């Protein structure tokens, strides 16, 4: 038994070497093409086309602003900005942008492998790219909202913060986290079709556990640290607000922690995906 398992493991290794090697720049080209296709396909045939992601984001913005700022009268104070519903809206939106990129990417990444059985079984394809495609597509869509927000802030505060240049530094861990969980979900979904639904339920809980539509200050003091420690999305939302609205980074510690956690999640997700990948073609 031991020898058989040894042989099997060895075969897996050798076989990977034997597969057609995609050079990294070819993979990059392919990824670009795939993401472009994904974005094109999503709104193909619709009249408003690429405006839809923005419309989606703005509709969410309006709902949450109405519920939290007007009905529930959540108060918050931000330096440099007047206290009114518009400010709340912008503040909310700055948190929603990374959240929507995260959830949109994660949900679609979970079913990215099962949705493309042809690429798994019939052609030689670098499967490592599959979950990355929806993650990047959702990220690019969310960046439209981000641009709209930056313009809005510039109009109301008559200034653009120099901290905007730091945004790419938060994009990296944010993408790593999304991709890591996406890999895990995509790999497991091949064997367990319940995963995408499960992810949907988890995301619902996660949304209200993350200080997006309420300020982190209202979380009881002794819980607050734990929330930021365990939930990188909470840190990302705060950092987006720091960079876009406040113009001053107040959450360096949380930023660092979240980056480390994201890196670990990405590593674990990718590892499990690679572990499961050889069996994909047998199952699909």
């Amino acid at each position, binding site marked *: 038994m031991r020898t*058989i398992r040894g*042989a*099997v493991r*060895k*075969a*897996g290794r*050798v*076989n*990977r070497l*034997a*597969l*057609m090697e*995609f050079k990294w720049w*070819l993979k990059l*080209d*392919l990824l670009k*093409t*795939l993401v472009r*296709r994904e974005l094109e*396909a999503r709104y*193909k045939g619709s009249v408003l086309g690429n405006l839809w992601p923005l419309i989606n984001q703005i509709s969410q913005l309006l709902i949450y602003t109405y519920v939290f700022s007007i009905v529930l009268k959540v108060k918050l104070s931000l330096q440099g900005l007047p206290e009114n519903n518009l400010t709340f809206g912008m503040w909310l939106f700055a948190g929603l942008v990374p959240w929507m990129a995260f959830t949109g990417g994660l949900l679609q990444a979970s079913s990215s492998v099962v949705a493309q059985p*042809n*690429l*798994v*079984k*019939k*052609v*030689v*394809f670098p499967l490592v790219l599959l979950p990355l495609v929806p993650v990047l597509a959702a990220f690019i869509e969310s960046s439209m909202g981000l641009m709209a927000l930056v313009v809005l802030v510039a109009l109301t505060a008559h200034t653009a913060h120099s901290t905007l240049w730091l945004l790419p530094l938060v994009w990296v861990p944010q993408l790593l986290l999304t991709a890591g969980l996406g890999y895990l979900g995509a790999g*497991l979904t*091949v*064997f*367990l*079709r319940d995963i995408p639904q499960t992810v949907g339920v988890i995301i619902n809980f996660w949304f209200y556990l993350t200080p997006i539509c309420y300020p982190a200050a209202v979380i009881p003091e002794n819980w607050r640290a734990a929330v930021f420690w365990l939930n990188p999305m909470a840190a990302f939302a705060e950092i987006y607000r720091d960079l876009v609205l406040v113009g001053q980074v107040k959450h360096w510690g949380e930023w660092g922690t979240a980056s480390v956690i994201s890196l670990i999640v990405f590593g674990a997700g990718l590892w*499990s995906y690679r*572990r*499961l990948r*050889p*069996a994909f*073609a*047998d*199952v699909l």
Partner: protein
Amino acid sequence: MPEVAISLKNVSKCFKRYRHPADRLKEILLPGKSRAEEFWALRDINLEVPKGQTLGIVGRNGSGKSTLLQIVAGTLGATAGEVKVSGRISALLELGSGFNPEFTGRQNVFFNGQLLGLKPSEIEERFDEIAAFADIGDFIEQPVKTYSSGMFVRLAFAVATSVEPDILIVDEALSVGDEAFQRKCFARIQTIQDRGGTILFVSHAASTVIELCNAAVLMDRGELLLSHKPKVVIDKYHKLIYAPSDKEKVLREEIRSLERASVTPLKSHLAGREKSPLSVVSSRVGAEDKWLREFYDPDLVPANTISYVPRGARILNPQITTQDGKIVNHLNSRNTYIYTYTVAFYKPASKIRFGMLVKTLSGFELGGASASASSQSISYVEADTTLVVKFQFKCLLNPGVYFLNAGVSGIVDGNFTYLARCIDVAMFRVQPQSNSQASGIVDLMIEPSLSVMEKGKKVEFV
């Protein structure tokens, strides 16, 4: 020693069947007892294909051919063993499977080209040529979902072969598409051969394998039974298909022993880099050694002979012999053979006629004759007479399987009727020849010739 393009060492593939896919997940992630039923699609395959060779793979359905191709192509992983492949692979496992129906032909060409390892700029360079080969006109700018299946296949083949693969894998893909396109495909395959590309080719069409390949392997039940020259492999393959199930085991053992006995494994008779037969101008002169010997295969007998209820005679012993009297059922085209059967009369009869008929596999009646005894002394036969009927014929048939009828008619008990008649009483195979360019069923003994026309002569186009 020639460079090896594909090398498989002790490759096995096991498909595990689980009651639930989640069981598989448990097994991958948690160590422990396997809950799977195992199914070995390939067992211990050893194969080396030198660079520049065209290898045909034949075998019955479910023998593991496609699994083997998928493992070489890299879409499936082997369970055990070592797979080494050097060079760019282009696999036509299923034409157009990388296509997205929502996108236009052009977009799919670019995407598929990238899957095959080309840079967008390289695809740009080849695009016109691809479009010209596919020959689908304006449809190249339309979504692929609007294509007819023929257009789909043409575009897919055009892309797959345009990347100048070092190794091309073709899995029966060419059987779709019309004849003109198939010809174009074969020409394209030939240019890949000429350029030194390696080709793996799965087909059920014996003549294609013999024409196109330098060597062939026979797969059966996940086992590589034989690797040899295409003719030999095709022969054994046919023998295996028609073998009754109780004889299969013996036959497989026999083929296996042939494989063991052959001192010239695949590698060495490939080593000579013989040119593909396709690229050699065919000539029948001095091709004696290219002809297969005629022989008798006891398994090549009709499975369903229909005999009319006898009314005075029985037909016995139908067989084909060579002119020297050797019994055969694998014939060579253009040789003369004798179809003979014995008629045993148990009632007196008169005005007797004996008939024969040759038919194709699908039942099309190709030709027959009847021998009348009226002019001879046996226009009337007593009961308990036994006659032998011989029909000499020239086998002007192209490779394939043919069936024979036999019949005796005459007046018995005052009625003109069939005394005995048997449909599909015997069968024979006309063996393929490696240099034959004939097509269709009947060999019209066509002698092609070419000459260059003088310049300046007016040519009228049809």
